[in-house]
């Protein structure tokens, strides 16, 4: 791969990101602007921003690598990532927007009228956000190493620095614009090379994958990433992705920038279209990789297949240019997802964990924006340090674990909170603790203990199928046992969550 081209593409993406951020900075004048873009973002731009933020390293590089290595079963990843937005649309899109909540802890506090739940949610948001930031930073390291041969800590550091500069300086307005542009950069960067590579493939007589007779690769139920019990693993993964999307910390923030519940639904609909368009492409790279690169060179991670493929198919100038385009797109993916996550993690650290302490230390002698900037740095430094300490377990595996934790905690909270008047404060807290505890233990076992054989490995590697039902059951049973702890204003809150905004009603 041509190092100069790759570096130029990555540098260009970083510069464009910073430039748009700076442009947005001029627009964001008041504190309210700084946080929520003044709520003037149109559904179409908002949907692009959600797409830009959501398509992460796991989508841009991870899916192709997984399909290349493990075949058909890996297509459940992009399917699940997309279906997650359909589930979100159907169950919580409008109520979330109408709740007026900006973060998940805001929603929890507004609905359950308890600061204990709020704090619990804050801890979970930070935990899930860091879990999700980890593979972004690791992916950046992989990509930069693949392009330039630089040590793997450099890529993560570049992403961390650009993200901090952007988030701390511009806030939400610039981030919304940056994210919207990033979606189109990413789609172009993955689609254009794919068309060229497809043309080359047709020109070569459309040869089938060398492993077409390897039924474990080409047929379903071959086992997810080498784990046993493929049927269980498939269902559990699908559940985690479908129900986890609504609980990702950087998703809800985007709903606040919709003007009303109706716009929130339409935004989500557009997101489904944008994601579907993008996910047509990554599997193509995995399949073409099987045709042209039956063996990866030693020491090359499957996660960098997307970057290797053009060079293998077009051993000339064009291949190098395409590789550079893809490297740029991959960096756009790291930057946008990491920015969105950092934005929401920093928001929560700032509001719920830092502000009061900072006020006490400085005697109130700091501005709100300064506090947010400190929180931003904190939000990135911790996962960066962790990404240096923890052995990579694969981008998509790591991301699916973050989904499993989100699905076991925030999914019950949001779904029961939006639709069930009987949810009590104690029930909600118990559900969060049980779901979060179980899923987090499974994640810790999977990441720290290495491969575990047999059923225990399958159950711990894909915890969603048992941890989500247990979390729901705990919340419901404990709520039924503590009817006295149902929040006082539940009926009023339900009016706010479900009535269309054109009716003049008392919503406070």
């Amino acid at each position, binding site marked *: 791969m041509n190092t100069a081209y790759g570096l130029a593409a990555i540098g260009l993406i970083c510069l464009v990101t910073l430039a748009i951020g700076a442009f947005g900075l001029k627009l964001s004048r008041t504190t309210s602007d700084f946080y929520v873009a003044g709520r003037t973002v149109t559904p179409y731009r908002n949907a692009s921003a959600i797409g830009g933020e959501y398509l992460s390293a796991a989508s841009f590089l991870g899916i192709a690598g997984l399909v290349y290595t493990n075949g058909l079963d890996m297509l*459940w990843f992009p399917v699940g990532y997309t279906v997650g937005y359909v589930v979100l649309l159907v169950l919580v899109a409008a109520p979330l927007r109408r709740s007026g909540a900006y973060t998940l802890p805001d929603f929890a506090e507004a609905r359950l009228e308890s600061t204990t739940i709020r704090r619990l949610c804050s801890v979970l948001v930070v935990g899930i956000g860091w879990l999700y930031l980890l593979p972004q930073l690791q992916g950046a390291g992989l990509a930069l190493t693949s392009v330039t041969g630089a040590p793997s800590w450099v890529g993560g550091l570049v992403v961390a620095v650009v993200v901090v500069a952007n988030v701390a300086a511009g806030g939400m307005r610039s981030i919304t614009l940056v994210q919207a542009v990033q979606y189109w950069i990413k789609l172009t960067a993955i689609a254009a090379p794919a068309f060229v590579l497809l043309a080359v493939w047709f020109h070569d007589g459309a040869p089938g994958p060398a492993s077409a007779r390897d039924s474990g690769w080409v047929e379903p139920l071959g086992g997810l990433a080498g784990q046993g019990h493929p049927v269980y693993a498939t269902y559990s993964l699908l559940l985690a992705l479908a129900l986890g999307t609504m609980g990702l910390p950087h998703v809800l923030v985007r709903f606040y920038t919709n003007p009303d519940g*109706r716009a929130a639904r339409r935004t989500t609909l557009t997101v*489904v279209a944008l994601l*579907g368009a993008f996910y047509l492409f990554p599997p193509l790279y995995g399949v073409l990789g099987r045709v042209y690169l039956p063996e990866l060179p030693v020491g090359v991670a499957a996660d960098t297949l997307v970057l290797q493929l053009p060079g293998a198919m077009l051993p000339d100038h064009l291949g190098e240019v395409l590789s550079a385009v893809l490297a740029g797109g991959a960096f756009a993916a790291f930057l946008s997802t990491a920015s969105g996550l950092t934005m929401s993690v920093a928001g929560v650290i700032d509001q719920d964990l830092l502000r009061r302490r900072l006020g006490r230390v400085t005697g109130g002698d700091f501005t709100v924006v300064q506090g947010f900037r400190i929180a931003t740095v904190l939000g990135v430094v911790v996962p960066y340090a962790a990404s240096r300490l923890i052995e990579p377990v694969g981008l998509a595996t790591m991301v699916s674990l973050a989904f499993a934790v989100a699905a076991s905690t925030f999914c019950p909270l949001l779904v029961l909170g939006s639709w069930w008047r009987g949810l009590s404060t104690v029930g909600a807290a118990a559900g969060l603790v049980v779901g979060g505890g179980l899923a987090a233990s499974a994640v810790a076992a999977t990441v720290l203990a290495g491969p575990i054989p047999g059923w225990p490995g399958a159950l711990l590697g894909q915890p969603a199928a048992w941890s989500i039902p247990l979390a729901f059951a705990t919340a419901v049973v404990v709520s039924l046992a503590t009817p006295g702890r149902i929040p006082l204003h539940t009926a009023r809150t339900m*009016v706010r969550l479900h009535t269309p905004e054109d009716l003049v*009603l008392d919503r406070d």
Partner: protein
Amino acid sequence: MTSTRRDATTRHGARPLTREIDEQSNLGEVYMSGLMSAQLRLAAMVLAFGAVGLGGLPLLFLLVPATRSLEIGRVPLPWLILAVVVYPVALVVARYYVRQSERIEAEFSAVVARREP
């Protein structure tokens, strides 16, 4: 007097439904639970469709092994479904949901507003 006295008309007519809802009277609660259960039924229907359509696939592949290697043209059926067909179907389902839920809300608004002064 330069404008109509809106409170004068309400005094004679029925109480506005928005007030029933605001005061959480029995009537207001009936309308609220009607709205919520209509929306929830719609959501359940869409989710059930997805659970059967998508969730049925692994089961189909498990129980009817012939479907695992079935080919349409040169493309194996499971690849065609999971890599391409799923996405337009998801979009159509989502679009159906958005339209239906907006219709439910429009009807709710119309009913409630009909008894506005």
